[in-house]
């Protein structure tokens, strides 16, 4: 299967210095590939999307599966090094680590000419990870044919195939190491008529300025959290062919605001790191999700081309027209900032903190609606301070899952069976909130 299903002269990325063609990317990737170790697993930490793409393509050329991980903390890198043979870092700036590092830099390289490289369909191209809430994330293997199938299905859905009109450019507020960002800004440009914006765009002003600098048709790939901040700017972005959101349910009010104030279709993708993108909908007009080509939804699992049967974190029911409706997340799972964790696992981590006798994490009622929602925790830990417990948790949990607030209580309102009911927890919350 071709590594890039595009003409060499087509633009694949927009950098501050100017557009980069497929031929240039392949030429630079060939030069970078020659600098990689003989075998191994790269951890591609590049924040610049072009360099992320360059590192990924170079690793593909050498048959190295890229570990999709943006967390450069020493304990995370150490855990990956222990789990995979020959891990090395691909980064665009120095990293405080003793792991082998290959700096991804701009170099003068000869442009690629002739046929594009071919990859075996079953080559393991990338490994994605879900939830580090317990320190040991679960790995999800991504063979090349599965990634390509997903990219082609997305290209069909969003009219990004070569015959669908002028080439598009995509700006994303999600990191390229997150499965959603990886699919939309690394895989799509390799397989569809789309060029990604290379720079980091995080704050609303960055995003709006960067959009101004991109050619039409512009796509914005983002999240409810970012959309909320962008809409609050009250500055109309450059004309957008579509806005795409994922990682958390999008409030209807925001979907309507984008359609009305920005004059752009507001699309949502339903996806998960395990399965990749599975379906989409136009939120303001369609309550139900339309699966991508090749995706077959079950009630608690999904069949994905190239991956087989993958369990789902959400309950699903069939809807008219081949669509499906999401019935909500399984009770124990929480999702914050695009990261998923199990409350039971979080509670287990809390219970292991020295001095903690009892404790429970609580998700707020608005967690599915409020993009800035936080967990809280009630903890029984005589003699320990909330700061001490937080400091211990910080070593074990991803920052988004740190409780805010962490409330010390003399005891938890457990019932005769030792269980904590929702009503009892609500009572506790009200009692603590009272003056």
């Amino acid at each position, binding site marked *: 299967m071709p590594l890039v299903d595009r003409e060499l002269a087509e633009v694949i990325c927009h950098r501050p210095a100017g557009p980069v063609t497929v031929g240039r990317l392949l030429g630079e990737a060939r030069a970078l590939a020659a600098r990689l170790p003989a075998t191994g697993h790269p951890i591609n930490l590049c924040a610049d999307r072009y360099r992320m793409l360059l590192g990924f393509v170079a690793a593909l050329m050498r048959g190295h599966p890229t570990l999709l991980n943006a967390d450069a903390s020493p304990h995370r890198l150490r855990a990956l090094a222990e789990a995979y043979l020959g891990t090395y870092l691909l980064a665009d700036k120095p990293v405080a680590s003793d792991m082998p590092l290959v700096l991804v830099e701009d170099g003068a390289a000869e442009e690629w000419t002739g046929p594009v490289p071919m990859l075996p369909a079953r080559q393991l191209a990338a490994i994605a990870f879900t939830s580090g809430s317990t320190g040991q994330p679960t790995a999800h293997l991504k063979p090349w044919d599965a990634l390509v199938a997903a990219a082609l299905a997305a290209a069909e859905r969003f009219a990004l195939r070569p015959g669908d009109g002028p080439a598009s450019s995509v700006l994303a507020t999600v990191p390229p190491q997150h499965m959603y960002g990886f699919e939309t800004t690394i895989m799509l440009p390799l397989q569809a008529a789309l060029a990604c914006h290379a*720079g980091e765009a*995080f*704050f609303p002003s960055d995003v709006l300025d960067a959009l101004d600098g991109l050619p039409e048709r512009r796509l914005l790939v983002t999240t409810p959290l970012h959309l909320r901040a962008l809409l609050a700017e009250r500055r109309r972005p450059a004309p957008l062919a579509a806005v795409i959101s994922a990682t958390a349910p999008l409030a209807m009010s925001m979907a309507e605001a984008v359609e009305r104030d920005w004059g752009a279709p507001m699309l949502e993708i339903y996806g998960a790191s395990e399965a990749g993108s599975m379906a989409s909908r136009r939120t303001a007009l369609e309550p139900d999700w339309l699966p991508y080509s090749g995706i077959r939804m079950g009630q608690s699992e999904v069949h994905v081309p190239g991956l087989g049967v993958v369990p789902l974190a959400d309950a699903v029911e069939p809807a008219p027209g081949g669509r499906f409706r999401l019935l909500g997340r399984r009770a124990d799972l929480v999702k914050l900032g695009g990261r998923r964790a199990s409350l039971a696992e979080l509670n287990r981590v809390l219970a292991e903190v020295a001095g903690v006798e009892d404790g429970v994490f609580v998700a707020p009622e608005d967690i599915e609606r409020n993009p*800035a929602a936080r967990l809280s925790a009630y903890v029984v830990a005589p003699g320990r301070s909330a*700061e001490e417990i937080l*400091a211990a948790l910080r070593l074990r949990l991803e*920052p988004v899952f740190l409780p805010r*607030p962490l409330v010390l209580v003399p005891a938890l309102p457990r019932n005769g069976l030792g269980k904590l009911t929702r009503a009892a927890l609500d009572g506790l919350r009200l009692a603590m909130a009272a003056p």
Partner: protein
Amino acid sequence: MPDGTMTPTFTAPGLTAQELEVARLIVSALSLEVAPEAIEPEAPLFNEGLGLDSIDALEMALAVSKAYDVKLRSDDERNHRIFASLRSLTAHIEKHRTR
């Protein structure tokens, strides 16, 4: 430098009036469990210190934009200095504020 234990203290550790105002804004925008007066002006806002993360960074950008019409950006290295501490953030706001 903070030692990570951060004993809450209500004696202002030398915050200027502007720093206190920005501290109040941050605490209220992010629903932090800390008294604005207790934020150490030179302590890091992210990771260690106050322990803020990227969700907070967006919330903070929103609050600062609303209150002072100052747009935070991440396009250059400057950004790391602006967010280094309450003191550096306040200095940035004071320099660029239009209201």
